């Protein structure tokens, strides 16, 4: 007799009409794991901040309690999954434990007293998806969590959140992270759970890609938000230095952010406006083609939980020139020379420019993108990531 494979995903991030790219890695994970499952239900709890004024808050909560069960209908999602999307009302608060408890509470209201039916629940972001899943799983169900949050240090700096996070780790059947920085942080704060924290990858599309590696690294591409952490100002300065030596170089900046106007101005001041294109946000589905249309991925982030763009670039068949931001180092471990070049996170843009000169000398003779691609495909392709999840959920027989 075969046992049904019913899985639920609980997540605070999932693409929607307002933010079509937010949580696209959760959508990719769902698309990867859906084949081979009998049923996949996705619960997307979207945080809505409301006034903390007690009298109003009470009335808003009463109204939401009345409306939520009426609104709970499944929409069609990737891989034939059912998507249940609803707002989790949270009074404006900096206390992450408050957010966690509210998410759990509203999932309970949405389920109208029932439990999540699946035997396996995989929750994204332990504090939000994880705690909600643990509070509403049925007896005997296994709850796994994956941590992606770049704001985890702030969460764990709060005593109440730390205590709740400890409880979540304790109650979860398995706890996963997408990169070494998150692993190290959790292991440091909760040494008693260190052995429980394992790696899991976000799936990357390896089906498309350039047939030939680029010959000359002239067309640079950055896929990153225009925010301080990504250090696009530093990238522009490094690019300006290289552009002064080779006027045929171009730089495409894919991404949006609060620094856009300041960065456009900086490009003007550096005299590289004509060589730099700000193309705004790009649909995740269009990223592989965009990458394949360039010669080099450049990434100057200070800190990353996972080097997703690095994997995407190599999957698309272009080398990378990236900073040691945590996630990138881990992704390129053992294939750094083949895939491109890593650069230390330093303030001097000249270091990045020097690294470019070095890579340009080595490429393509002393790089091996094919080998790097196959190395990463074994870890990050949809098939590999699906197989990993299925083995975690259903054992070696999966």
């Amino acid at each position, binding site marked *: 007799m075969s046992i049904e494979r019913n899985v639920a995903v609980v997540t605070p991030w999932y693409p929607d*009409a307002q933010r079509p790219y937010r949580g696209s890695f959760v959508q990719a994970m769902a698309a990867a794991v859906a084949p081979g499952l009998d049923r996949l239900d996705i619960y997307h709890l979207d945080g809505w901040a409301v006034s903390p004024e007690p009298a109003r808050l009470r009335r808003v909560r009463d*109204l939401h309690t*009345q409306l939520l069960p009426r609104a709970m209908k499944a929409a069609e999602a990737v891989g034939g999954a059912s998507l249940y999307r609803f*707002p989790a009302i949270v009074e404006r608060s900096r206390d992450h434990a408050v957010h966690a408890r509210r998410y759990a509470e509203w999932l309970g209201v949405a389920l109208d007293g029932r439990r999540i039916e699946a035997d396996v629940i995989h929750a994204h972001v332990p504090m939000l998806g994880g705690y909600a899943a643990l509070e509403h799983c049925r007896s005997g169900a296994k709850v796994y969590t994956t941590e992606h949050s770049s704001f985890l240090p702030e969460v764990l700096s709060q005593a109440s959140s730390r205590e709740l996070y400890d409880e979540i780790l304790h109650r979860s059947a398995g706890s996963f992270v997408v990169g070494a920085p998150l692993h190290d942080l959790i292991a440091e704060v909760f040494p008693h759970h260190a052995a429980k924290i394992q790696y899991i990858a976000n799936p990357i599309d390896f089906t498309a890609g350039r047939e030939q590696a680029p010959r000359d690294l002239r067309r640079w591409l950055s896929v990153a938000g225009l925010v301080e952490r990504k250090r696009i100002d530093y990238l522009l300065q490094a690019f300006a230095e290289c552009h002064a030596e080779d006027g045929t170089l171009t730089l495409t900046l894919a991404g949006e952010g609060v620094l856009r106007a300041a960065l456009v101005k900086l490009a003007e001041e550096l005299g590289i406006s004509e060589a730099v294109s700000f193309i705004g946000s790009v649909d995740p589905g269009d990223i592989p083609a965009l990458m394949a249309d360039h010669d080099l991925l450049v990434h100057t982030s200070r800190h990353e939980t996972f080097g997703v763009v690095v994997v995407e670039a190599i999957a698309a068949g272009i080398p990378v020139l990236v900073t040691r931001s945590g996630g990138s180092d881990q992704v390129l471990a053992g294939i750094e020379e083949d895939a491109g070049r890593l650069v230390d996170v330093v303030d001097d843009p000249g270091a990045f420019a020097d690294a470019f000169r070095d890579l340009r000398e080595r490429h393509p003779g002393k790089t091996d993108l094919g080998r790097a691609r196959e190395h990463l495909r074994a870890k990050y392709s949809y098939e590999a990531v699906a197989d990993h999840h299925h083995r975690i959920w259903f054992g070696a027989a999966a």
Partner: protein
Amino acid sequence: MNLLFLAPAASRKRAVAVETRRAVEDGHRVVLIAEAGIRRQGWEDLDPRVEVDWLDANTLSATESPALAVLARRLPLGLLRRLGRGPLRRPADKVARRWERWVVQPLDRRLRAGTTALREARQLERIRARLEYETPDWLVVCEPKALELGIEFLPALLAERPGTITTYAYEPARGGDDAR
């Protein structure tokens, strides 16, 4: 069906544009009550077939009396600034900081609360006026502010018309709209 989208703060413009277009293309009549904002910025993608009631509540702001502005803000702070240019810089800065904290900030808070009250009154007035002659089959509560304002009229509306569909987005349900 008659759909009414409520977006009084216009905090999810992109979603509203996408979902209202989707609803129109599904053959529904769509009315949107939304904040226009400055020169309707961000609303460029709205489908012209959507009937819109612009709220223009953001044009309203609470004001304080000129006498209060002079006596509580300009005069004391100007005086302290002038004193701060001389040898009394430290004590003057200290007093100015305290004045800001104990006098100016509470006044600012009062102004903000007054502005919120004015705007909410306008928003509610317009929504209620529309609901006087509009009988939506389906209400889409698009954003947190719609829910916060909804406490003033939604419970009564649903008690009167319990068959009204209410959702937080317009997304095609599995099995079509009948599944709702």
